[in-house]
Each structure stands twice: as structure tokens, then as C-alpha cells.
């Protein structure tokens, strides 16, 4: 090894321009792979956050019709869970964190002062706020158990709907007419980037206690149930169990899944996660290919060097250099170009990522969806190991060529 270092330090370094270009190619590849991977990482985190914005560990169950005969009844019967049955059903499902009824009235006139908007009014049980991430802006609150028990006329607004109705004024405490009935605004939802949705986006809905909703609109049934579990892994069982309980109460085959079509968000978040990982891998592969091209550049230059130094290598062989002493310096040289380029690339990429983290995501539609690039330790490790492998290969193949030189053939004539 000492001999290899001696020879490496002694051997002619490349022409400056050529070395610079090689290193630049590797640096470029490193920047590419790092940016792509960190972009993927940011995207993954943002997608995860956005897909969780609707709520975590929840399932949504819609009312539909039976598709299987049951106890002499034909299929095709509509199943409609009533608002009043929710507490009974919930008491039979202790394994759920919460069972929530959600009733929806579309295109209802909402009037604030002189402004009227056709909005969507949902009646829900109060645990909806936690389950569906209806976090209030400071100064307001979500619906409370008392609101529901006393059938109060209070309303919680999505952030865009609130802005639509009240402009820049603080809506909390103000009066809002819902279908000409006066309601007090108790809270406005914090802005969130929501990816999954059913029945419209949260930012333009409004929410009142389900008891108030039933009295106001006179409809006794819910549009859908929202069930929430403590542990996402138990979601499938919870859905099956809920279907059983509802089936027992409303008389249909508990195995009739299409009577109550269900969206298992735990499952779909898992799919999202896989898609993100897939995207990241794809980006990583593109980056690695870019880096590989840089590696080919290094190998190419090393081949040229080997060719240039054929006679020199032959002389060293004649003087008694062992194969490893011929190949070692070439491998070291290839590695060192790759390392210098890699370190430079990592610095550049880190600066770029740091710079991009100062671009605000709020209010920028694209950035809200894509997120900002993030560097992470696994990304660094992955890039470093790819660099290492490419560097070794870029040195190894030219070195092997060098080792195969026949000294006798190179030495005799000019």
C-alpha cells in the first residue's frame, strides 16, 4: 500500500483543464442526484402531510342500497342510518375512537350582512373536529358537546368560505343567516392543504351541530358515517365490525359490502406512501444515471491516461512493479476525482436546497403541493455510496487495462 501511495503521489497529474472538466461532470451528477432525491423527499413529506390533512385513521362509510337478499327481503333496499341512531350504534362499537354522523345540505343560502353565498352546510357530531382535522384559528373554537346537546345555533366555517362572507373581518362572534335562520360563528378552520376529499373541500364547507341540522332541514338521516380508530392497523376490522352493527340494526347481510361503500383512508394513505417512494426511486435512478455519465467521463479520461502512459507503465513493469502497484494509483486517481467532484456537488446541492427552503410555500399553489426539497441522511448516504461505487469502477476498468499491458511490447522503440 505504501508503494501504491508513493507511485500515486509521484505519477503525473492530469492536465488541469481535463481534471477540472472531469470533476465538474461528477459534481454536476452529484448535484443532479441530490436535488432530485431531495425534491422527491420533500414531495413525499408534503404528499404525506397533505393526504393526512383530511384526517388520520379514519374511514368514511356512505349510505347505499343492499345488493344481497336478506331474510326474505329482496336486494336493492336503501339503507339510511338516522341521526338519532348514532349514539346507539356508537355504544355498540366501543373499539372505535369515535363514530360520527355527517349530514350534508348542498347549496344553502348563507348571508352575512349584505352578502349571500350558496354554501354547503354539514351537520356533524362534535368529535368530527378532531377526526377530520377541523382545527380552529386562534380566537375561535370547534363545536362542543353542549352545542349538540342543546341544539345551539352555532356554526364553524371553512377558511375560504369565511373569507368569502366576511372579507378581512374576524367572523368569530358575528351573526350568519343559514337558510334565513340566525347562527353565531364560533370558529374558522385553519388553512390546510388537503389532498383527499369527499363531498367537496373542507375550506369551503360550514359545520353546525347535527341536532341543529336535523331541526333546521327536517331530514332524519345522515349522508355518511365517519369512523375513527386509535390504531390505523385495526381499521379493516373496525370497518367490518361497524358494518355488522349497522346491519344488525337495519336488517341486511353484514357481508354485503356494497350496502355501505367504504373509503379506508389508512389503506389509501399507504398506497400514497408507496407512490411517493416509487416517485423518489424513479428520481433517484435518473440522478444515478446522470452521475453514471459523469463516472463514464472519469473512466474515459482514465483510459486516455492509461494509453498516454503505456510506455511508462511498461517501464515500471520492467523495473519490477507488481500488478497491484500499477493498478492501485489508477484506482486512487479515479476515486479522488470522484471524491473531489462529489464533495463539490454535495456542497452546491446543499446550498441550493438551503436556498430553496427560504421560498415560502404559503400562497404558492405549486409549492403547497410539491413541498420544498429536503436533504436527509439516507439521501446523503445513498449518494455517497453511489459515488464511491462509480469512482471505484471508473478507476478499476482503466487500471485493469493498464495491468494487461505487455511490457515487452512497449519498451523497444520510440
Amino acid at each position, binding site marked *: 500500500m505504501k508503494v501504491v501511495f508513493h507511485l500515486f503521489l509521484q505519477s503525473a497529474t492530469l492536465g488541469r483543464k481535463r481534471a477540472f472538466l472531469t470533476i465538474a461532470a461528477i459534481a454536476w451528477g452529484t448535484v443532479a442526484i441530490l436535488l432530485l432525491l431531495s425534491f422527491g423527499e420533500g414531495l413525499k413529506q408534503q404528499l404525506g402531510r397533505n393526504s393526512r390533512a383530511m384526517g388520520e385513521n379514519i374511514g368514511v362509510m356512505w349510505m347505499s342500497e343492499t345488493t344481497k337478499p336478506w331474510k326474505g327481503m329482496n336486494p336493492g333496499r336503501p339503507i339510511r342510518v338516522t341521526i338519532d341512531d348514532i349514539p346507539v350504534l356508537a355504544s355498540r362499537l366501543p373499539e372505535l375512537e369515535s363514530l360520527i354522523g355527517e349530514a350534508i345540505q348542498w347549496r344553502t343560502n348563507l348571508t352575512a350582512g349584505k352578502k349571500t353565498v350558496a354554501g354547503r352546510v354539514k351537520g356533524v357530531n362534535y368529535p368530527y373536529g378532531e377526526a377530520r382535522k377541523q382545527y380552529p384559528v386562534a380566537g375561535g373554537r370547534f363545536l362542543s358537546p353542549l352545542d349538540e346537546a342543546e341544539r345551539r345555533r352555532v356554526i364553524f366555517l371553512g377558511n375560504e368560505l369565511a373569507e368569502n362572507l366576511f372579507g378581512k373581518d374576524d367572523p368569530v362572534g358575528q351573526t350568519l343567516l343559514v337558510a334565513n335562520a340566525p347562527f353565531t360563528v364560533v370558529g374558522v378552520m385553519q388553512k390546510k392543504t388537503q389532498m383527499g376529499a369527499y363531498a367537496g373541500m373542507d375550506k369551503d364547507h360550514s359545520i353546525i351541530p347535527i341536532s341543529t341540522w336535523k331541526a333546521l332541514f327536517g331530514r332524519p338521516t345522515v349522508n355518511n358515517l365517519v369512523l375513527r380508530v386509535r390504531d390505523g392497523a385495526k381499521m379493516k376490522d373496525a370497518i367490518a365490525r361497524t358494518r355488522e352493527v349497522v346491519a344488525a340494526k337495519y336488517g341486511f347481510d353484514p357481508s354485503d359490502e356494497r350496502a355501505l361503500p367504504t373509503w379506508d383512508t389508512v389503506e389509501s394513505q399507504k398506497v400514497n406512501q408507496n407512490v411517493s417512494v416509487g416517485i423518489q426511486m424513479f428520481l433517484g435512478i435518473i440522478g444515478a444515471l446522470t452521475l453514471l455519465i459523469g463516472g463514464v467521463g472519469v473512466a474515459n479520461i482514465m483510459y486516455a491516461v492509461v494509453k498516454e502512459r503505456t510506455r511508462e507503465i511498461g517501464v515500471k513493469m520492467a523495473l*519490477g512493479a507488481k500488478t497491484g502497484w500499477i493498478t492501485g494509483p489508477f484506482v486512487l486517481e479515479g476515486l479522488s476525482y470522484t471524491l473531489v467532484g462529489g464533495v463539490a456537488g454535495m456542497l452546491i446541492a446543499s446550498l441550493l436546497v438551503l436556498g430553496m427552503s427560504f421560498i415560502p410555500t404559503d400562497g404558492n399553489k405549486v409549492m403547497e403541493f410539491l413541498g420544498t426539497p429536503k436533504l436527509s441522511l439516507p439521501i446523503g448516504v445513498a449518494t455517497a455510496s453511489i459515488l464511491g461505487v462509480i469512482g471505484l469502477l471508473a478507476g478499476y476498468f482503466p487500471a485493469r487495462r493498464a495491468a494487461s499491458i505487455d511490457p515487452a511490447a512497449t*519498451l523497444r522503440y520510440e
Partner: protein
Amino acid sequence: MSSRIEKHPPASGRPIIEMAGIRKVYDTGKVQVEALKGIDLRIEKGEFVAIVGPSGSGKSTLMNLVGCLDTPSGGDYFIGGEKVAGLTRDQLADVRNRRVGFVFQAFNLLPQISAFENVEMPLVFGGVPPKARRAKVAGLLERVGLGDRMDHKPTELSGGQMQRVAIARALAMDPDIVLADEPTGNLDTTSGTDIMGVFLDLWKQGSTLVVITHDLALARRASRIVEIRDGRIVSDRPAEQAA
């Protein structure tokens, strides 16, 4: 001229090179070329052998085999009593390092390092520690008259000086044999005579020399001339008779 023999130590009778029935066949794919067709050659310690012959006669092939740059296709070859056949590349490299010093027509010094580092190279390969290397290299360069040029790059030296550096390099590991391939071929007459003098001095000091040459002046000063033609030795005689 007749006093020359007395000046030189007689051959010792101890063989450095022993070749018996050496054959070398180059397989070029379609055609097999037999470059050497059975060479028997014995060179003793302290001899100065000139190998002559027209181009294509196989003398370069013979030189490669003697210098362990290549292995024979058939026959037995011992260098310093060590059997060469069947050695790996790295073992051959080791044999070259310890036993053979090369001097080439084209000097073959490494251009980007100093004269000192060029002479040092075989010692690096031989695993000689740095301190011993420095002393040895300085001594060798003094011996070839380049004590004041140690830090010069080869490009800063004349042809004759370069060949002196190459000779110093060839002697670095105290080899059993110094193998020179047309050592004066790239030099003008004056430098050529000069280098010839260096070789004669080496011989006087007890080195074993094998020189491949067209230079009759150089060949005549050897103790023995081996003539090779068509892959066979056609004559092997003391140099006086060739004169």
C-alpha cells in the same frame, strides 16, 4: 589491444543464465510464428556478451526471455539458479526487480520525475526503506558522473546523460545481470563512445553484461559475441575472433 584481456577479470564459471532448448512461439490467431527454435545459451558471472543479428532474427525475443519480460513456450530457463517457467506475472516482476537491470535504446526514463526518483524506482519496488534508498541512489548517480544533476528532470539532460541515469537505475538493485538493448542506438558518436566507456567500467568492476547491438564497435569490445539468425544461434565465439 591485446592487453585488454588481462585488464578484465576472467569469467567466474558460475552460471547466471542457463537456457536449454528454449523455444518461443507467437500465436497470432491464424498463424503460429516460431521466433526461437531451440536456443542453448549459458552466460557466466562476469561475462560481457554481445548478441548480434539482423532484424527479425529473434534477438529481441531472446532479450525479452533473458530479461523475464516474457516466458518461453518450451525449454528450460534458469536465472541465477532460479527456474523461470511457470512463474506468475507478479513473481516474474519480482525476479526482474532483483536479478535484471534494463538499459533501453530509448532510455525509457519517466519524464515527469527527477533523475533521482527514476533511479530510486526499482528500490521502491524492491521494498528498500527510504533512508537506504537515498544513500544508494546518491552513490549510483555519483558513480555514473551525475552527482550534481540528481534533481534534474530527464528532459533537462542530454541523451548521454539520460542513458547514464538509465544505467544507474539498472544497477540500483545490484542485479545479477545488466541487459542493454541497443544502448547507443539513439546517441551521437561521442555520447555513444562515452556510454561504451561506462559499460566497460561496469564490466571491469565485475558486472555481468548482455548487450544487444548493431554497433560493431560496441560488440567488438565484448568478451563474447553470440550471433543469432532465424531463431537459432549461428555463432558463439570470443570477441577477438570477430575483429
